[in-house]
């Protein structure tokens, strides 16, 4: 039996209300103990002095592009990027080619992830067959194949009747419907946030009301069905307010925010650089402030990346023709520290909660992951909270390089990452083959 003793670190586990200098013991694939006393016989001692020790980070919104777009990313390369970013578990989106709308498709992801043996990968199934928005996919069989949630991500479930049925039907399995909220008729042809900047630059806009209206609609549908609704990558002030108000009424609604939506604004598009093109688009300063406020007051409980790799030749096209999205797994931790923790918007335990137990609960993994309780999966992230470094896209572990954060000086990074009781990333190096 292999036993790891992680000693001397600041152990933060929001699921147990722990924030103290405590040791952690892992045995085989499980957490053995947290505290000051543990077994004397250990196989490896990791000195975590000066580091933060927390449950392995969970990203509920990642695109791994396999199958179908392996030139952008594969399950193996995406999982490498996750490890390098301190993320031990990802939920991958079903907008692959073909989409994850069949048990075979979902099982393929599970199998490829096992073969890669990097981080934990949980597939999110499609809500509708072919992601076409017209007919429910076989949600129950997808659950049995391994799907942890459902979404037609990349496109919203536009038809309100189908969305209502999805919320009703998925509640049978207590699974959440994750929605990319957008009224497509209002965003058709859009490339950036619709507003002053798009008007100034002559770039087709995606107005904020396109998101606001869908968020409001879906919260109402969740309310009447009692289903679980998750708002993906929330980006507008009004949408944050809608979620806040929905929660006040007791609706089962959760929301996530991505680092680019709390660090960047739409005036960046003045450079016409496609690395600032994402969907939902970068919004205005007041939207950024609203997202941060939503994170601060608990309206938004999850941080995610919407890691969306695209090969360089695709992003190098003219702005309207370049695809939406940026990679994010390796910049999640430093941007969270530099732009949420350091300015005082979030304290460490709250930020760690948003990256661990909150996404675990969202995905129904809270009985195994997101916590360092004895018996839980031995997924642990050690963060160096003080490391100052400059983001260099060329050093990304992702197969793609599409980040707008190249050259940014940031604080904090993953130091050591343990998955299933094995050290898979240490001091900047992947330790898996």
């Amino acid at each position, binding site marked *: 039996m292999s036993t790891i003793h992680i000693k001397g670190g600041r152990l933060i586990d929001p699921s147990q209300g722990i924030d103290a200098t405590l040791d952690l013991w892992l045995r085989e694939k499980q957490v053995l103990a947290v505290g000051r006393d543990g077994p004397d016989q250990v196989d490896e001692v990791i000195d975590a002095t000066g580091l933060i020790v927390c449950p392995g980070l969970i990203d509920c919104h990642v695109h791994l592009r396999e199958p179908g777009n392996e030139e952008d990313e594969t399950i193996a390369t995406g999982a490498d990027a996750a490890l390098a970013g301190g993320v031990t578990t990802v939920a991958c989106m079903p907008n692959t080619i073909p989409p994850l709308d069949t048990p075979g498709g979902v099982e393929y992801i599970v199998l490829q992830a096992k073969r890669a043996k990097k981080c934990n990968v949980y597939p999110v199934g499609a809500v509708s067959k072919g992601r076409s928005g017209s007919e429910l996919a076989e949600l129950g069989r997808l659950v049995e194949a391994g799907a942890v949630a459902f979404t037609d991500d990349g496109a919203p479930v536009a038809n309100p009747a189908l969305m209502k049925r999805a919320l009703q039907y998925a509640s049978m399995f207590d699974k959440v419907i994750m929605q990319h909220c957008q009224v497509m008729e209002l965003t058709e042809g859009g490339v950036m946030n619709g*507003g002053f900047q798009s*008007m100034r630059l*002559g770039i087709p806009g995606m107005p904020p009301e396109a998101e606001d209206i869908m968020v409001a609609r879906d919260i109402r549908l969740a309310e009447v069905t009692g289903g679980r609704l998750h708002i993906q990558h929330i980006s507008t002030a009004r949408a944050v307010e809608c979620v806040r108000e929905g929660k006040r009424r007791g609706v089962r609604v959760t929301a996530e925010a991505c680092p680019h939506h709390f660090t960047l604004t739409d005036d960046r598009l003045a450079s016409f650089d496609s690395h600032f093109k994402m969907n939902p688009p970068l919004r205005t300063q007041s939207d950024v402030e609203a997202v941060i406020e939503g994170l601060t007051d608990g309206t938004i409980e999850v941080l995610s990346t919407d890691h969306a790799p695209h090969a360089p030749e695709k992003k190098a096209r003219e702005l309207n023709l370049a695809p939406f999205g940026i990679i994010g797994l390796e910049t999640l931790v430093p941007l969270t520290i530099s732009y949420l923790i350091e300015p005082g918007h979030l304290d460490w335990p709250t930020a760690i909660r948003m990256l661990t137990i909150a996404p675990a609960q969202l995905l129904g993994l809270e009985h195994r992951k997101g916590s360092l309780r004895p018996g839980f999966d031995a997924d642990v992230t050690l963060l160096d909270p003080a490391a100052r470094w400059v983001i260099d896209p060329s050093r990304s572990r992702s197969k793609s390089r599409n980040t707008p954060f190249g050259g940014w000086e940031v604080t904090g990074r993953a130091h050591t990452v343990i998955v299933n009781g094995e050290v898979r990333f240490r001091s900047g190096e992947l330790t898996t083959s």
Partner: protein
Amino acid sequence: MSTVPASAATWTRRHLLGLEDLSAEEIIAILDTAESFAEVSDRPRKKVPALQGKVVFNLFFENSTRTRTSFSLAAKRLSADVQDFSASTSSLSKGESFIDTARNIEAMGSDVMIVRHSISGAPHLLSKHVRSSVINAGDGAHEHPTQGLLDLLTIRRKKGRIEGLTVGLVGDIAHSRVARSNIWGLTKLGAKVILCGPPTLVPRGFEQLGCEVAYHLDEVLPRLDVINVLRIQAERQQRGLFPSVSEYFYFYGVTQERILRSRPDVLLIAPGPINRGVELTPEVADGPNSAILDQVTNGLAVRMAVLYLVSGRAALANQPD
């Protein structure tokens, strides 16, 4: 050239991507340089050796006849070698990227690339990947700087000044690159700009660019020194941005009656191509207030000036011997 204005000697830009980036002084330097080139067109031998040995490529990724012809002629009058390239017959249709196409052209020895593209920012993207000077000949709905400059030159020549004038831009402002270049150029030189059209084509946000927004042409007409009529694309009506062409013409068409209710010396300009009977009537287009054909002539002088300035010859011409 001995006639180059002194202000041109301070020109330092390698590209001309838009008027938003330029200072008032830089815009005036271009207009003054254009004035000095205008007389070339009146000579029996319409040619000067300013760009001899330089290679100018017309890269038109979107259809255009008059702008491309104007640039070609301007380059030829400066004695440059000019090569046209149009996307429809190019490798783009074989899947080659925009940047690779431009790099291949550069490998043939281009000094200046004149770029027209249907996507905003395309010339800006190109300017980061090539060593040649890039001149924006219209990008998406963003800017059309030489059109803006030739409008400014036409107004200045006809009115003797820009500062203090009130200029109305009438039509589809939201989708117009000409409108944006005009807004930047006119406001930087001290003119008041009134944008006029239905709210679906003239959103309120334009007020933040320092313009007045008006929806009723008849109410603003008496205040205008210049009416700049922008083209309405049939596609906009098909997308439901206004109910019909005839309703548009009823509210915004520049007719003889509207000219009669304007100031007697009101100047009418239009970037073209004009749709007679949609934006303005034939008698107005060809009438005494119209400077539409002067614009075309001035466009040549402006494009000669821009080519000359970005190619770095002005600084050389003004250096002491």
